């Protein structure tokens, strides 16, 4: 009854009042429908034998056939393993380095040097993967690379053929990923450290606590929630790979697929290179669904650990 009274304004008048606001939202809503919601519905093509003459809706349903083909190949296991394992290493290493650099930066007394170091480590974060692939090429090119022509000869070593040797690539990709992303994590953790009350440190040094003890007993415990949150967010995205890192940096070299093929590059190649849309769409749906479950799960855990940082 109370509800009925408060909404005594006629519906039409209310709608008229808010019409400008709805109109304002219209372009964004239309965009999200086109760019996001229709493709979600389009995931059904994974269950179809796509025939462009019949169109997407007119193509024949084939149930799980695309998935049976996909999971019968060794590719499915390989791309899943590569995607997840690389991400596990990225999460551990990048967060470790990010926290370390942030702590070192925070307590640095030379302010100009501090500013310089921070600018330097953050710079790679703003660079596109295409440019990064050029930077890497300048080091690894077989006949002109800095490593093969300048560094390795100093040690009397013959340089390997980097772009055809798959076993060399896990460390390279891990290094490049850290090179690009540690600066971002460092800035993030630095802002978290700056939020710590300075009195804790003053009190601790009065008590004679060493630098290391202050880090161990004040800094680390107080930024732990931020670390946990970042790790959980990254775990939520563990089924998604950085396409540019795995495609451009190894220069799409076929000899390297064993260690460079991930779900995202597999889907791209299936769709645009080999024309195997069935497998590609099956792999895409697999990624979307598992990715969705992981995001929901990680958020559930975040909500348990620190509710204010949960996405929903």
């Amino acid at each position, binding site marked *: 009854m109370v509800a009925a009274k408060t909404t005594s304004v006629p519906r039409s008048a209310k709608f008229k009042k808010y019409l400008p606001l709805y109109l304002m*939202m219209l372009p964004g809503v239309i965009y*999200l429908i086109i*760019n*996001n919601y229709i493709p979600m519905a389009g995931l059904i093509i994974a269950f179809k034998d796509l025939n462009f003459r019949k169109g997407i809706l007119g193509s024949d349903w084939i149930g799980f056939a695309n998935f049976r083909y996909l999971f019968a190949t060794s590719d499915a296991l390989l791309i899943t393993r590569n995607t997840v394992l690389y991400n596990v290493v990225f999460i551990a290493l990048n967060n470790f380095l990010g926290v370390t650099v942030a702590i070192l930066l925070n307590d640095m007394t030379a302010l100009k040097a501090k500013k310089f170091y921070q600018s330097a480590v953050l710079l790679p974060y703003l660079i596109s993967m295409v440019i990064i692939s050029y930077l890497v090429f300048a080091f690894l090119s077989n006949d002109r690379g800095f490593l093969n022509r300048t560094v390795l000869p100093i040690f009397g070593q013959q340089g390997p053929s980097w772009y055809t040797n798959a076993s060399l690539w896990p460390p390279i990709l891990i290094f490049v990923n850290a090179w690009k992303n540690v600066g971002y994590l460092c800035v993030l953790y630095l802002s978290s450290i700056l939020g710590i009350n300075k009195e804790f440190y003053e009190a601790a040094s009065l008590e*004679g606590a060493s630098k290391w003890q202050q880090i161990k007993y004040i800094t680390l415990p107080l930024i732990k929630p931020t670390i946990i949150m970042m790790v959980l967010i990254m775990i939520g995205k563990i089924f998604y790979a950085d396409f540019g890192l795995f495609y451009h940096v190894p220069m799409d070299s076929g000899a390297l697929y064993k260690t460079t093929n991930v779900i995202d590059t597999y889907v791209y190649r299936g769709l645009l290179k080999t024309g195997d849309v069935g497998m590609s769409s099956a792999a895409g749906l697999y990624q979307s669904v598992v990715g969705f479950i992981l995001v929901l799960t990680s958020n559930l855990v975040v909500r348990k650990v620190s509710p204010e940082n949960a996405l929903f």
Partner: protein
Amino acid sequence: MIQSNDNRIFQIVAHVVLALFSFLAIFPFILLIISSITEENTLAIYGYTIFPKQLSGEAYAYLFKEGNQIVHAYGVTIMITIIGTFAGLIIMSMLAYPLSRRDLPGRKGFTFFVFFTMLFNGGLVPTYLLYTNYLNIKNTYWALLIPILLVSAWYVLLMRTYFATNVPTPVIESAQIDGAGEFRIYWQIIIPMSRPIIATVALFVGIAYWNDWYNGMIFITKPQYYSIQNLLTRMMNDIQFLQNNSSLSAALAGTAAIPSISVRMAIAVTGVLPIMIIYPFVQNNFVKGIAVGAVKG
């Protein structure tokens, strides 16, 4: 005294470690820049080095003189970055403002509608098929502008929160009493009062457009629509590309070849240069943006 000693050791360790990290971060750029000004034959013989035997500006001279393709791609990148950033900011803020209004009927539903796009997505295959087979944007400039980049749910929600917490409701209400319409409130009150968040999002969206190669790689096959990033992608795979596409390729037969090795590096330099130039000026904004979560991790 033990403490200051302890601190001194910390400072030394910090300097050593951070200097090493900074060197690792910057060195590749130095190698790239020096490679772009190394004489072509020196590159062929000694490879990419930091102390080349002979320097040369021939790569840049070539870019200025014959690089129609490059200048064009540069123009495409600039145009797409400016239009995309403006259009994206307007569309996103117009979606964010109503969502920031607690009195808007259906607010929760709309917010979820925006938010859900962050949790679940259709991925490349349906997106590609929709844009190419139904919306026909393949090989048009729209392909560089619209897919994926234009509106991001995360920025919309970031702006919504900012509007809701930084523009007091009484300000909006008194404007309404004075007879201002919603569009006027949005344009003359909300936007001017929210400059910091608009600037932050503009910076991130602008960099995303400048650096984008993904849309071009998927939707563009004709070189006349290449952005600078797409041109670089193409040249990495096909070192002859410039030669084949040069406006002078016929005239070039018999004359000196294009310094293709150093030119590649020179184009890469021109691709990063604008970022390097604006970096010192925007760095503080960028850092603040990361701190408020303007980057989708």
